[in-house]
């Protein structure tokens, strides 16, 4: 159970403080600020013990959220709760920032009241919470709404309230995949995995029953090695998934037997499914950097990017960010394609390309002038980051909605 929940800004000022249990004193708020937020060293662990009280913290941009307890709780659950709290807040007022929190101060207290009682998590589904949180608040509720609360909470389905009506029934499905890659300094891929999320936005009336089919190319790898062998036999057509998890609303028994996902969706946006795969990952781009230090005050950087996908596809809005040392005084950039600019405030050269087809190559070279410093510390050489969009119709994802 959670004894209290505090939200601080980056300076350690308390924005929200809510204590649920007697064993957490008022001074706990200050203890965390002094020992963690104002501590000189780096954060050593997201779980801190101060005077036998455990503080679990999560940072979102420059906001600290801390849950406090004296009990021997399970850490994963507390963190999950904090994430959920962030999600719920984000669903109500967007990005979690100091300004948003200050402006929605009342709302957050209302939420904290509903989500936790006596330190125990209660209802935390955004959709269901909407019934209890009255943002305008002034109007007393109508008879109809009152009966809704009664029925909603007696109902079997915790994540959806009854009597939702839309003029137009709409359903949006996004498959968001992020490729995580670890590469050795020699350019060898050490490990890679794709973590994907199927996010659904549903605006449907009543209690709709949705069905979601997968084509049979999908092989979900169970623990045994048998399936893995089958995958290799059936050739490249199959798509292997290492593990996948579903939202609570999905009936898992049907998934196991019929390979169809059937569910009654919550209202609004939610994450239907999450999956992870480690097989056959083709990297869409390769970035090859060359850095040469010419004397103490000059640095030559050359970066080549190669697109590694089918020539028929097009990558858009490519943005490459090349970090520069802190003591940079001037930069000259030459690039063959796109536009590049040195942004002193961000300590980086930003190179933007509007479009790039597959199997192409492009390069940028820059000369960086440095101010001489006494600082003996080496430059950390932070990694180059890159953003892009590839739009694909149908062919990429194996999902099909019935």
């Amino acid at each position: 159970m959670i004894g209290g929940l505090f939200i601080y800004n980056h300076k350690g000022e308390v924005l929200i403080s809510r204590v649920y249990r007697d064993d957490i004193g008022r001074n706990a708020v200050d203890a965390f600020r002094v020992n963690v937020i104002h501590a000189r060293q780096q954060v050593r662990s997201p779980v801190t013990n101060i005077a036998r009280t455990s503080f679990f913290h999560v940072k979102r941009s420059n906001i600290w959220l801390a849950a406090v307890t004296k009990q021997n709780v399970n850490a994963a659950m507390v963190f999950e709760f904090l994430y959920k709290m962030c999600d719920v807040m984000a669903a109500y007022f967007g990005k979690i920032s100091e300004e948003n929190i200050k402006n929605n101060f009342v709302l957050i207290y209302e939420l904290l009241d509903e989500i936790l009682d006596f330190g125990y998590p209660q209802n935390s589904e955004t959709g269901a919470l909407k019934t209890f949180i009255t943002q305008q608040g002034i109007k007393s509720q109508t008879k109809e709404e009152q009966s809704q609360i009664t029925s909603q909470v007696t109902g079997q389905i915790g994540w959806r309230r009854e009597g939702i009506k839309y003029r137009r029934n709409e359903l949006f499905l996004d498959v968001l995949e992020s490729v995580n890659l670890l590469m050795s300094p020699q350019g060898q891929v050490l490990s890679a995995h794709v973590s994907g999320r199927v996010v659904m936005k549903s605006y449907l009336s009543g209690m709709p029953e949705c069905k979601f089919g997968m084509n049979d190319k999908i092989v979900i790898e169970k623990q045994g090695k048998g399936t893995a062998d089958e995958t290799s036999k059936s050739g490249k057509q199959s798509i292997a998934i290492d593990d996948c998890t579903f939202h609570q609303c999905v009936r898992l028994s049907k998934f196991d037997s019929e390979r169809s996902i059937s569910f009654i969706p919550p209202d609004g946006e939610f994450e239907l499914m999450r999956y992870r795969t480690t097989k056959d990952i083709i990297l869409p781009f390769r970035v090859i950097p060359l850095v040469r230090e010419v004397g103490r005050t000059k640095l030559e950087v050359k970066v080549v990017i190669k697109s590694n996908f089918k020539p028929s596809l097009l990558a858009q809005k490519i943005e490459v960010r090349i970090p520069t040392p802190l003591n940079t005084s001037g930069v000259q950039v030459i690039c063959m394609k796109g536009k590049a600019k040195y942004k002193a405030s961000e300590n980086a050269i930003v190179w933007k390309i509007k479009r790039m087809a597959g199997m192409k190559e492009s390069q940028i070279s820059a000369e960086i002038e440095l101010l001489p410093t006494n600082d003996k510390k080496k430059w950390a050489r932070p990694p180059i980051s890159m953003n892009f969009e590839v739009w694909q119709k149908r062919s990429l994802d194996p999902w099909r909605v019935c």
Partner: protein
Amino acid sequence: MPYLGSEDVVKELKKALCNPHVQADRLRYRNVIQRVIRHMTQGLDMSGVFMEMVKASATVDIVQKKLVYLYMCTYAPLKPDLALLAINTLCKDCSDPNPMVRGLALRSMCSLRMPGVQEYIQQPILNGLRDKASYVRRVAVLGCAKMHNLHGDSEVDGALVNELYSLLRDQDPIVVVNCLRSLEEILKQEGGVVINKPIAHHLLNRMPKLDQWGQAEVLNFLLRYQPRSEEELFDILNLLDSFLKSSSPGVVMGATKLFLILAKKFPHVQTDVLVQVKGPLLAACSSESRELCFAALCHVRQILHSLPGHFSSHYKKFFCSYSEPHYIKLQKVEVLCELVNDENVQQVLEELRGYCTDVSADFAQAAIFAIGGIARTYTDQCVQILTELLGLRQEHITTVVVQTFRDLVWLCPQCTEAVCQALPGCEENIQDSEGKQALIWLLGVHGERIPNAPYVLEDFVENVKSETFPAVKMELLTALLRLFLCRPAECQDMLGRLLHYCIEEEKDMAVRDRGLFYYRLLLAGIDEVKRILCSPKSDPSLGLLEDQAERPVNSWASDFNTLVPVYGKARWAAISKYQGAEHRGPELPNTASFASSGPLIPEEHKETVQEPDSGALMLVPNCQLTAEYFEKTWFSLKVAHQQVFPWKGAVHPDTLQMALQVVNIQTIAMSRAGAHPWKAYLSAQDDTGCLFLTELLLEPENSEMQISVKQNEPRTETLNGFISVLETVLGTIGDIKS
């Protein structure tokens, strides 16, 4: 944060709250209240406007109500007399037609935390338990726990407990979970909520309907249930199988723990479970949620202690990436150090070598220590890497490498030669105390193999005046004396100088004493010195063995999914040791301007109230008697007390057994429901070891239960105590039925 001028703020707000114009305008009124709450959040003492806030609670604006109630819950302990004024409004709200208002009022009323509030909340809670809106029931159920917390020393209300037990069958999943939580708190002293077979099976069936928090909680409660047969055990495990693949890592870990505990006698099942959760754990370890990743890594380390090879093929998953926070990198390095085996050692060492030159000195040092750890098994490769690192001539690297060498030479004497060759030259790059000590120790112990050892030590002797760390001087004394024994010609002169300095000029007492000690030892003759300094060491290989002993899964299964793996066992033991002595120990630095912190009835009082009363009876939980032993004792003793108790109708053995369990009375044997005559044999033991054996007899024709109690030590006061406990239980059970 005590603010200057807080009185002015209070005065101003008070004026605004009283202003009828503000009161008339809802939005302005609410704004003023918001300001009060904001100041309260910042730690300003706002109890001055309590009266005005109580008035503000009488409104139709729900948001305003919520804010005012929040305020009242914070300050009620400071102003108990004023808070009583608010009770009226709250009671009225408890019967509002809107379930949300009812729930809100009930929740706030239960959180008031002031003495004397119990009598007002009891009735609303009981009404709430039977409310038709489950929203109110949820609140009421937890309200029972809050009420019990307020009472502190009061006895457990049997009727309430029974009501809560029956609410476990409620339709609403959250009510069910709240019931468990509430019962757990109320029955804390009796060992918590009892999970018997019907309850366990009921909960198992409801599991899929619960949300993730509920599932995690129920999994935790189910740990307490002991299946009767092997068949039942495997049925339960099959039911729980799907939770190992839940989308919530907390539920996955909870389910894993339950599996490990239930299958404690089946090691193959345990191993199988750990294989099954490998995927989800790895997914959590590489998830974007850093903190969750940290928690998962801690558990991976725990598993590795028992199954060293478990994650070996996935070693690449534990390579650090640039953008990860410090704490994750450190954990990953530890994991890498533990999963190393013949196949991956090359790659892992290669990766760790890369970390050694990281810009963050902390991380680099952790990586070097990790290589040192691996060196205990793969000595040659590691020593080579470490030697190469010395070539970088970086201060923070050299000092850690030398420390690693010191430990390594002790544990793996076969690498001494290589270490001795690497050492010359590194004295120039060591500045800190730990590193110097390690180097000096190495030079002293293995000085005969390092040609320039006396000259290096000579430098230290030359600069001893400017040396700031006493520990280094002590180490220097010992090392030089050791070296003197094997290379006397080169050392005699400087040993004399060092001893002279330590005895005559040194200010630190410990160093001076050691200097004097060695001086006198030398006076006693060189053989004596040899006998003392070169006495046999403890067997180094023992330390190595002890360190790597595999721990069985069962040794940590009960700690899995708690804070123990996160903090480490030793640290957790230190933390929890003081938990009992909480109130006497040093508290958090008290900078808050007012002291509403302590609970109204501190927990320790609960115990002290009971303890001094020597006649009071304390029944020990889990006193298990075998039926044979019971029978033998029963026939050997005389009846100490016999009485009859009014009883109507039949007996429900299950209910009775559960109720008796609550007060730590064990049932040895019992007739079936509806049997004539109906009999039951009970046993209990108090903290002094006195046994109470009881027979309950219900004759079909009389409406009376005959109670006969036997005691193995004749003591009337405890006997009376026991009988009154028994009477209470029987009375409660009888009441419910009628």
